[in-house]
């Protein structure tokens, strides 16, 4: 445990020195604040408060940005250590690969949590200051933060998998970009194409919602939506969410980080430093 903490503090320090922490926090803050401000002009039209609209648009943002930020934090770590030769050295110390991975995860998860809470929290404060926040929308914001952290931890773990399989940092960067593109962008496009092609058939009504929930990024959308009817109204995700049991999205968001870490552990075990 002391060793896990030693690795975690070191990795967190690297995150700070690399300015990844600052970049991630800044990126999320700027977008969240901009969305909240732009929401201020049209929230009246839907008959809901500003923060509700803001959470809806921030959810859409989080689906793209949080996986990206998470991958950026984690993709370098194993391939980079291997490239420098320090991975081989660390592994000759009495520290297990699991402990090494746990330490890194702890650090990257902390960094991501700080970025998410700061970014979305600032947007919440802004909405409150503008007088457009209530109890329900504050809860929705907390829910978004939780979902975003879970989504981020899934992608941190996926970043490790990519990194463990990559021969070099450059390859890991490419791999991380590819994974992001496939899971966050192409997945939705393919589903959309299938739904259109199916034209309201069995696939759209029965299969589609489950396939949607199976992807952690889409699970965040569903998770954020199922919170309230108001959210469903703003995001238009209500139809899919209605088919699924309430726990589905949260389950997907919880399973992915665990699955990702297990996969990362297996990939890391196979790696010869």
């Amino acid at each position, binding site marked *: 445990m002391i060793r896990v903490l*030693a690795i975690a503090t070191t990795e967190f*320090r*690297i995150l700070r020195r690399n300015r990844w922490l600052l970049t991630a926090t800044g990126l999320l803050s700027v977008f969240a604040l901009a969305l909240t401000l732009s929401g201020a002009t049209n929230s009246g039209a839907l008959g809901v408060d500003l923060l509700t609209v803001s959470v809806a648009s921030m959810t859409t943002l989080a689906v793209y940005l949080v996986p990206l930020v998470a991958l950026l934090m984690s993709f370098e770590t194993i391939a980079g250590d291997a490239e420098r*030769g320090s991975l081989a*050295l*660390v*592994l*000759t*110390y009495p*520290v297990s690969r699991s402990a090494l991975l746990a330490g890194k995860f702890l650090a990257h998860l902390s960094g991501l949590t700080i970025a998410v809470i700061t970014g979305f929290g600032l947007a919440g404060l802004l909405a409150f200051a503008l007088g457009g926040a209530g109890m329900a929308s504050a809860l929705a914001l907390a829910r978004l933060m939780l979902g975003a952290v879970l989504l981020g931890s899934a992608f941190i773990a996926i970043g490790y998998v990519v990194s463990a399989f990559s021969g070099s940092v450059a390859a890991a960067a490419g791999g991380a970009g590819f994974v992001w593109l496939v899971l966050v962008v192409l997945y939705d496009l393919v589903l959309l194409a299938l739904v259109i092609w199916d034209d309201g058939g069995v696939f759209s009504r029965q299969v589609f919602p489950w396939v949607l929930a199976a992807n952690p990024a889409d699970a965040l959308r569903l998770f954020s939506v199922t919170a309230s009817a108001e959210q469903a109204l703003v995001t238009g995700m209500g139809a899919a969410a209605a088919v699924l049991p309430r726990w589905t999205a949260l389950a997907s968001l919880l399973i992915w980080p665990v699955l990702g870490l297990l996969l990362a552990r297996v990939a890391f075990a196979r790696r010869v430093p």
Partner: protein
Amino acid sequence: MADRPVLDAVGLTRQFAGAHGVRDVSLQVHAGERVALLGHNGAGKSTLMKAVLGLLPIDSGTVSIAGQPLGTVAARVAVAYLPEAVSFHPALTGREQIRLFARLAGVKTGDGDALLENVGLADAADRRIGTYSKGMRQRLGMAQVFLGKPMLALLDEPTSGLDPMARHDLYALIDSLAAGGTGVVIASHALTEIEARTDRIAILRHGQMVADASLKELFARAAMPIHIRVKAKHDAAALFDRFGGRRINGAQVEFAVTQDQKLARLAEVIAMGAQVADVEIIPSSLEDLYRHYSGQEERA
């Protein structure tokens, strides 16, 4: 029991697709012993070290470190390693890096600070490693070897990239390590350094161990010729007729003798009296020895 080797590798084999890796290599190292591991580029020195450390899965063979089988925590506690051309995360300072290693080794972080001083990094300790020169990174790597008083230290080309003074300092560090009872294996290409600084020499060729003995023994076993160079007072022709060999710029003759002929031939030279201006004995160098063992097959 006191004489149990700190490293006992027997029949170690690790093949790579298309490369030989190491084949049936055995190596014993005792406490306080300094062993030089020599061999051409690609001979398998780094592979042998990684296999011994459990970093590289082996095809067959057994390894024990301080009596502990390969891969156990106890074995990892007993061993220290300096990888070839190691580098560290550029964003960390030297002190942060050594303290991390100290925590991983389970020793006090203060020990790490003291080690930085020993390797001459005290002034640079709080600078980022990204700003270090190659030699400074190498020193940092060397500092971590001392953490936790290892029983066995494997150093992969520790002096590469170091200036002459730094090399001298590094060998002083290695000596102190060995004096403290650590068995040290040093892979190196710097033959002249090795000569004075190690107790035993092991030579790998194409992944196989072709020599493993003290320098003296290796010289004796190789039965390599000693060269005698005679300078003539006036004309080298008579000397050349007598001893053969080859002529060097007119006035000198150089010829090879074996160890047991040496004195007899020297007596002959001296018997020639006034014809001889000077005589020089040139022993075979470590380089000749290295060439003898690491190139055996090519010559045969």
